[in-house]
């Protein structure tokens, strides 16, 4: 078993125009690898668990950077770092939910180089898969985590379909809650996908966690005005308070008027392969005042339908607790 801490030989392309990057991505297809902040990339490549022939370094493309106000909200360049996101006045003022989520990603050093696109597009963190085992997600025909002896404390309680890995992204639940749109470009044009549809589970495609396909580049994320300046709540529970992935997280956006919640979006992270809308919770809180009384009525709504594995039954209590805490503020 070779153990590595030296990067492998790899072709490096450094385009400065997005069109050139798209041409490269199309030409290289599965043989190429898009590089943003590198915080997911370098681990895969160093360990030789992924062995692309070429790396397309997007960092020279200025158009992929920056946060711009638009007619209907804000557009965030894909290469915007998480630190830039956290410190941006527009984000802090209108979409503090996203800033709060980004602030809980990993560590300051990683946030300084990790990008928005990288955070949402990063692959699952199931240790079996990361170790290079031939599981379903890696093209094999079994799941090591979903067994009686599997080490599955951090895995899914919903949506298992052969694979039981969960979404590791802290910003993804916030983007779904904010009804963000993901702008995807390819040589054949541009398509805009709702964040909720951007993330896909193993039942849809077990080899990918997003709808991105070879030849495509996520160029920006758009936040509509819909939830600007709403009431927000974000909480991430992890073993450690830095440099750790969520055991469960929650991102909630609520519109209050007349002392009651007019509309709400509650999204949980790390409970399934995609950010999970807590639709029952949302229905239950609409028309209700935000506070203890409503929180108590939620009971176990958030965890309804969960199918825990051997070691992750605690996630049911945790997602129920976090849903209630979102109401309490």
């Amino acid at each position, binding site marked *: *078993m*070779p*153990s*590595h*801490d*030296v*990067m*492998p*030989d790899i072709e490096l392309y450094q385009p400065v125009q997005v069109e050139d990057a798209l041409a490269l991505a199309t030409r290289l297809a599965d043989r190429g690898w898009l590089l943003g902040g590198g915080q997911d990339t370098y681990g895969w490549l160093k360990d*030789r668990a992924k062995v692309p022939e070429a790396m397309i370094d997007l960092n020279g493309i200025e158009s992929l950077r920056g946060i711009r106000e638009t007619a209907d909200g804000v557009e965030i360049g894909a290469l915007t770092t998480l630190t830039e996101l956290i410190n941006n006045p527009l984000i802090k003022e209108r979409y503090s939910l996203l800033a709060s989520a980004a602030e809980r990603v990993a*560590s300051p050093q990683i946030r300084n180089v990790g990008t928005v696109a990288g955070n949402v597009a990063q692959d699952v963190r199931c*240790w*079996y898969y990361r*170790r290079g*085992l031939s599981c379903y997600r890696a093209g094999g025909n079994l799941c*090591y985590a979903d*067994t009686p*002896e*599997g*080490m*599955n*404390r*951090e895995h899914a309680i919903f949506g298992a379909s052969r694979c039981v890995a969960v979404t590791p992204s802290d910003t993804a639940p916030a983007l779904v809650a904010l009804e963000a749109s993901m702008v995807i470009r390819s040589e054949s044009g541009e398509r805009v996908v709702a964040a909720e549809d951007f993330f896909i589970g193993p039942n849809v495609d077990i080899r990918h966690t997003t709808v991105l396909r070879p030849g495509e580049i996520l160029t920006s994320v758009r936040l509509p005005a819909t939830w600007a300046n709403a009431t927000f709540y974000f*909480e991430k*529970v992890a*073993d*450690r*308070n*830095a*440099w*750790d992935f969520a*055991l469960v997280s929650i991102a909630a956006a609520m519109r209050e008027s007349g002392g009651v919640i007019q509309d709400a979006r509650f999204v949980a992270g790390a409970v399934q392969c995609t950010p999970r809308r807590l639709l029952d919770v949302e229905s239950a809180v609409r028309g209700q005042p935000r506070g203890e009384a409503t929180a108590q009525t939620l009971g176990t709504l958030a965890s309804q339908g969960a199918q*825990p594995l*051997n*070691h*992750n*039954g*605690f996630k*049911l*209590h*945790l997602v129920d*607790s*976090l849903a*209630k*805490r979102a109401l309490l503020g």
Partner: protein
Amino acid sequence: MTFMYIGKDFTPPDAQGKITGQARYAEDFRKEGMVFARLLTSPVPSGMVRNIDASEALRMDGVVGILTADDLPAAPRPGVPALSNELTYVGQPILALVAISEQIAENALERIKLDIERRPFVVDPLVSLTAGGPDAYPEGNVMSRTADGMALKSLKWAPQSVEAFRNGRDPGDVEYTTEWSYGELDAAFAECSVIVEEPFVTAGYPHHSLEPRTCMSYWENGRCYFHGSLQSQSAANAPLARMLGIELKDLCFINETTGGGFGSRIGPYPFMAITGYLSRNLNRPVQVRITREEEFSIGSARSGMQGWIKAGLKPDGKVAAVDVIIVNDGGASGSGSGSASAGAISVVYQPTAMRFRGVSVFTNTTPRGAQRGPGQNEMHAILEPIMDKAANQLGMDRLAFRRLNAPDNSAKVEANQGPVTSAYMREAIDMGSELFDWPAKINQPRRNGSKVIGVGVGMAYHGAGNNGFDGIVRIGPDGKIYLHTGVGNLGTYSYAATVRAAAEVLQCRWENCEIVRGNSDLGLPHSSGQGGSNTIFTHTRSNWVAAQDAVTKLKEIAAAELGGTVEDYSIGEERVFKTATPAQGLTYAEAAQRAITLGGRYSGAEYPDDINELTALAVQRIAGSGLVGVAKDNLEKNGTAPGLAIGFAEVEIDLDTGKYDILDYLGVAECGTVVHPKGLSHGMNGGGVWGMGMAGFERHVYDPQNGLPANVGLYQSKPPTFLDLPVTMRNAAVNIADPQSPVGARGIGEPAMGCAAAAVTSALADALGGHLFNRTPVTPDMIIDHVAQNTYNNKSLKTNTF
């Protein structure tokens, strides 16, 4: 006693280099023509390499060659061989490949084809102990004494015995490999009004030394120049020379800076042999650097425990009897610390009678070895909540209970119930109670919404002082004081703190002293392995006696030149002078010049018979360069020098999330005289951080399905981060001199960790109304499962839960 330097802060001379990056580690050294070796390690937990096909790799440009187990002398079984065809854990080195660059070496490893025959494997000791369970080696799962020495054998317990053990009961009539007892156990239990009986589990975990270990060696004129990374500069020279098959005089060991050891770098680690053999065979400098991931498997780890304890308290609160059984996870090396774990109980609670029964079981996991307070610290983390339960059942304040049982100068230690050099635990408890404000803490409101406060206390012990090592000081004709030390620079600054004892004796200016260290050719004395909190006690003594020898020689030289007897002379301001007429004297520089002229024992041309061979070689190297003071520490030492500490923690658990914050932490050291206040403070805090990691975060996880380790990186292993710790950590020291140290000092490194781990587990139990997890680490999922009364995670003494 009033000291010039002992008890005063100072800046160790290498501190700046650590900050600026100028400090040199083994990896930083280069030599012309140097080549690089990388290891190919086992992908399976158990098996046998039947064939190695390296032909494709060897054809690659830049590949120099490979070294396999067949190229090395046969290693004893079971053991931790440098390279092996018999595979007993994932990550075990099979071969080393040499290339002109690290990148080529890594790429070439991918081209090697291994034919491995798999064997059954086991990752949980109790699974192996159960009748019918797999053994880690074909011959067995434990070491057993035979007529020919120690040998592997298969030890099994009946399934019902294992089941009883898992459920918190004495397993009954089963076999152990280690047992000891003292006192009348049954009679002592009969006197008890409270008896608690609990099972427990602790996780093993790796050391995570910041510097992945590196070796570089080359040969010149028959001598081996070896750059390595060990805790001690001198302790491992002799075994390393034996490993390389050379005489001690033919080894130059260079170790200027070590990036942490924590017990994992006491002796020469096996792959040092790879470096030495390759460089000799190739006649080129060779560097072997392992990766962070390999440090996880090659760097060894703490042994985990599965155990059972029964403790009894008499009506007055005195601990009368303790009965403990420990099954250790010995990994591929079979190393366990159960006896040390039990011994620690005997020290901190001084039970009238005690029994220990234990067995260390081989598993197909990373080799186990010493790790900061091996055995003791994890025992304290488990023990303290259990003792809290006993005190609470008796209706006794938990601190008063500990005060009643605390070790003092009449304390007895471990199985042989030997004496201590001194012990002032009661004073530590009183100091801590006042500084932490124990009465106010335990009487504060405990519940606020989903948050609940817990207050805990934890005591810890480790033997903290040795004797019989050597010291060398040299006064140069330039008037400078050269303090030669074989103590390694492993990050604690003890190499600098201990030589201040010599400066103290010589009453010289600290700024006129130069510490000579880091390269055996500079003439460095034999030293301890610097394991187990030993350095401060052990090497202040050895420096003290060497400096005393120098002072004697100064006076003899002065008396010979200026008349009178040795008794007529004093020292001060770097002069030796007649006490009655201070103007008559010699400067240290003048005396050093006279020593060179006189030769013999004054210049180091002659030296005492009882010093270690390494020290003798060192004196030979520096002979004639000044006045040489050299001596073996033959000072009186009667009993164990204990390192003792008590920690106090206040935690706030969020019952919704299972997370907790440590709101306040105080560690009080009972380590005799404080030598270096800032060093002690850093040691208490650093140990405290690791203790908090033991209590709440760090663990090995091996998958029982395939024997693979789940957490081989720092982010997976989860040592605590800055944000997981108290905002401030406080510490204090009793600071009462130990009579068997000339400076009054004992060590404290290990208990600094154990008391913090125990204080946190005690506080967690307190917050949860006395609920005992009896497990480390206590993680959020466990707290939630308790709060939610989940039945999903019935882990019943299982190791490797994740």
